[in-house]
């Protein structure tokens, strides 16, 4: 049972879990819609909820159960079987079978069209499985069985908390009524009653709270209920929302903390005010001149990595992640616990300091965030009996394992999968430069497949040129074009291979800006779009647009055209008050346009990303 008990990691993901809805949290689905739709639901939900929650055996339990029964079952297999398991309604774990509803009902429910999630049937089915997990928890609690996943409980307490104080009078009244109704219902239920009421309350509570947060476009679609016991210790687990740079107070505070002096650029793009927009020119000299001042906070290796991020010497999700992990490894090698401090705590704070330095150099990629989370959880989970050298040894080898398994080996698996999709005579299109895609091409070429590559590139980074250089050197015939011509070239393309910075759990691909256009054009031309992305880059969050979270590049990069000095109409743009330059780094490709995601767990439809995130969370990549 304890397999499921994943200890909490220190990090705070922005969004807990995604794409799942329960009867109680039904309003969630209408979240992006008008808020007016929800209030009646708060009245309706308790009765609906407390009495007949839709119960589906949670695939989480199922998979662990399966794993226990058939230890040799491949993880992918058990994962795939997740939805099937739900249908066949195997009672597992701490379930009270009497609480079960027919799985058919569950599927019906999941068919319910939702505006932005689970467009496909399969995702709907999968999605329903999680609320079951929640109820699992509730019932487990009432039965006083200590089998519920510890982390889920914690999440519940924490996620419900922020809403508590926000309720208005009317809302409080609604809650009270809901509670009363729930109590009455519970009394009818008998012995289990009082506890069964709890989820109802909290659901209404959560849903009310959500109304207030409606404006946020990050779909926090999974605010789950929890017990209402105030628990001070857990308060710090409340996930910090992403730093919003239009919040002056917090920006001021962050500035005081920051090591590097950053001046905000004058002409900030209004729509992206919540993202850091700094003047890029002053950045590097400042970091450079602070070289010796930083030696207390930043390890030389970390400093070097930060500098190379800042200058763009190292870019690309995998490269940055590996560079960062290697630097952390160096710093752990040189680390010695100061007297009267514990390694776990002190090292964690050290790593935090390094991470914040790296963030100041360039915002973290999702892959790096996941890797940091992994490392931190490794630190906190260090066995107590290990001595300092042993702990260091273990951490260093953990990092090595991470790099070799999650990145390098994953790439190999991806390449092997992807190569099967390349046939003789194919014309493959790729955009910018992705290390995974490049490896796929090279491997396919080694296998003697006859194909042609179209490299689509875009200013200002022109990353595709380097890829072009390497591919042509290997003797692969290439076509190089800019993104402007993509609709023309797409006629002859048979497959599109793209890399990704991250894949979010609604199947959205977060990648180099321009990827979305490519995928859209390919979709229009009925060309399959294959995304090569290692699973460690998956993110449990959901994002609906590329505005709320993105990275802004140096605006000068788009204002200046190298080699064309005559086009100087943008010179001195910074002084033009009504001109703002926007150099976005990433965009989102909706899962509609993605035919398949090739990952180290196999080739999956974009809707299955959520499953992987959920099933493999015990690997500490996602909390």
């Amino acid at each position: 049972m304890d397999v499921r008990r994943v200890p909490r990691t220190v990090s705070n993901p922005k969004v807990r879990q995604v794409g799942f809805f329960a009867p109680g949290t039904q309003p969630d689905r209408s979240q992006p819609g008008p808020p007016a739709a929800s209030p009646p639901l708060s009245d309706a939900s308790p009765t609906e909820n407390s009495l007949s929650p839709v119960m589906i055996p949670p695939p989480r339990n199922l998979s662990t159960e399966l794993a226990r029964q058939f230890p040799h079952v491949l993880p992918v297999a058990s994962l795939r079987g997740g939805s099937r398991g739900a249908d066949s309604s195997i009672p597992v774990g701490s379930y009270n079978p009497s609480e079960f509803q027919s799985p058919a009902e569950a599927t019906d429910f999941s068919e319910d069209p939702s505006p932005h999630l689970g467009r496909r049937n399969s995702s709907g089915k999968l999605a329903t499985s999680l609320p079951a997990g929640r109820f699992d928890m509730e019932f487990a609690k009432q039965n006083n069985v200590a089998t519920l996943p510890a982390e889920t409980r914690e999440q519940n307490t924490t996620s419900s908390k922020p809403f508590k104080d926000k309720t208005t009078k009317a809302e409080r009244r609604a809650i009270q009524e809901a509670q009363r109704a729930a109590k009455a219902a519970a009394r009818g239920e008998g012995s289990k009653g009082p506890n069964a009421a709890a989820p109802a309350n909290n659901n209404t509570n959560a849903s009310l709270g959500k109304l207030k947060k409606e404006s946020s476009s990050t779909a926090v679609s999974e605010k789950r209920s929890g017990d209402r016991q105030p628990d001070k210790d857990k308060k710090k687990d409340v996930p910090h929302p992403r730093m919003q740079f239009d919040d002056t107070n917090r920006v001021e505070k962050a500035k005081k903390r920051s090591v590097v002096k950053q001046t905000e650029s004058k002409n900030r793009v209004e729509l992206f005010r919540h993202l850091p927009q700094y003047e890029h020119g002053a950045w590097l000299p400042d970091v450079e001149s602070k070289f010796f001042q930083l030696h207390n906070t930043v390890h030389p290796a970390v400093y070097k990595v930060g500098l190379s991020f800042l200058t763009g010497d190292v870019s690309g999700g995998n490269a940055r992640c590996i560079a960062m992990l290697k630097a952390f490894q160096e710093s752990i090698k040189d680390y010695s616990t100061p007297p009267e401090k514990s390694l776990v705590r002190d090292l964690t704070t050290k790593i935090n300091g390094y991470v914040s330095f790296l963030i100041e150099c360039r915002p973290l990629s999702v892959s790096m965030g996941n890797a940091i989370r992994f490392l931190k959880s490794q630190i906190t989970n260090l066995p107590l009996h290990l001595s300092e050298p042993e702990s260091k040894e273990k951490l260093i080898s953990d990092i090595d394992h991470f790099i070799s398994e999650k990145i390098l080996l994953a790439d190999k698996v991806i390449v092997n999968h992807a190569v099967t999709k390349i046939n003789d005579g194919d014309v493959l299109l790729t955009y910018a430069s992705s290390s995974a895609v490049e490896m796929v091409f090279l491997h396919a070429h080694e296998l003697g497949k006859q194909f042609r590559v179209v490299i689509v590139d875009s200013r200002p980074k022109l990353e595709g040129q380097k890829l072009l250089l390497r591919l042509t050197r290997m003797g692969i015939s290439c076509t190089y074009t800019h993104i402007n011509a993509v609709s023309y070239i797409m006629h002859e393309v048979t497959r599109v291979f793209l890399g990704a910075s991250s894949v979010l759990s609604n199947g959205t691909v977060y990648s180099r800006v321009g990827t979305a256009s490519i995928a859209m054009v390919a979709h229009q031309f009925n060309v399959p779009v294959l995304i090569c992305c290692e699973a460690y880059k998956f993110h449990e969050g959901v994002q609906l647009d590329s505005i709320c979270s993105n990275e802004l590049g140096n605006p000068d990069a788009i204002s200046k055209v190298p080699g064309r000095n005559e086009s100087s109409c943008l010179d001195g743009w910074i002084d033009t008050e009504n001109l703002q330059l926007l150099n976005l780094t990433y965009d989102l490709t909706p899962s509609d346009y993605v035919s398949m995601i090739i990952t180290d767990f196999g080739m999956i439809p974009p809707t299955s990303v959520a499953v992987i995130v959920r099933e493999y969370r015990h690997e500490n990549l996602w909390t």
Partner: protein
Amino acid sequence: MRRRPQVSMDFQIVVLAGGFSKTLLPLVSKDLPKALLPVADRPVLSFVLELLEQNGIKEAIVVVEGESAALLISAWISRAFEDRLNVEVVAVREDVGTAGAIREIGHRLTTKDILVVSGDLVTEIPLGAVAAVHRRHDAMVTAMLCSVPISGPLDSGASSVKDKGKKAGRLNIVGLDPTKTFLVHIASGAEVEKDIRIHKGILRAFGQMEIRSDLMDAHMYAFKRSALLDVLRQNEKFHSLRRDVLPYLVQSQLKSSLRINGSQSEENGNDKDALHIQQNLFSQLANAPHLLSDPILNQTHKCVVYIANKTKYCARLNSVQAFSDINRDIVGDANHLLGYTLSAQNNVVDPSVILGSKTTVGPQCMVREGSEMGDKCSIKKSIIGRHCRIGSNVKISNSIIMNHVTIGDGCSVQGSIICSNVQIQERASLKDCQVGAGYVVTANGDYKGESLAKKEK
């Protein structure tokens, strides 16, 4: 683990303070090594040490040639920087050169990289920047180049830059790669004849090369310790870092880059055009497509440059001329380095100074405490040290007068450097002279462009 706790980002700072430099005679003397020469009444070494302190460096090794100079310098440092910097003064044999000095202190160097700073550098360029660039590229050597100082040469027009460069031999012909990060070629001004020869391998490796002569080697280098010590061990006769070690490293970088790039089938047809490039030609030879411009990224042996911002002051005190230039700049254009606030007249006059009637102290002047001046004196663009006694009707311009100097009535001192304890008797006239310590200039003497020093007993 053997490693010491992190010493300032794994960097050690070595300040080469020199000894009794011959080029600076008669300014230096037995009691005044080069490092302690007063620039605006502060030893020149203090500028470097304060720069270190500003950059958050806690430890440094100061290498001095000769025991006696080392004693003087360590005495001064322990007085002035008592709890500010942890400075270790190391004496090496005289005339071992900069390379020899590093060779001798090699066993004290433990960190991954070392930063070698010349003790006669007066600058505000952050050391950290040089170190950071070095680290970033993981370079073998990083040299700091700065534009020629804001004073002097620039005022008198570009043509004199060249002449001066040749005369002083401190201007280098520097070849840079297109991104201005890598040092491709270096030759000091004195060696440069009419043409410079560039190996065609350079151009093959880098594609383009920019040749500049407006950059000065500031004698601040970051070295990879192991590599530097290896080079010094293998080449026993290397004497100077600038003249021997740096060109050697730059050349051997080409060898390795040749080897690496040789395997790549790059088409560079027009090599031979590049063999002779006229001096001072800012040429860009675009014989490689833009795409191929980073063939050396995998190279292990990199020579990197840090080109200092033009607005930052940077000068080396390595000649008599430089000494007076720096002194003038320090109270003039670059007065932010000085650490004193200027008065309304744009000068620094200590309150204890006694000025006679109708005596004027012009802008860009500095008069230190305890000095006395008679009537009708005129001081322009000059620095006067402590406890000087200056008679009436004395005209001083563009001069540096150190401590305890006595100047008789009616003297005229122009563009001269007067060391400590000099006595200038009545109505002497000095123009562009250097007067060594303790010298007595007789009355009514008239000297132009001479170097006057007491005979060594």
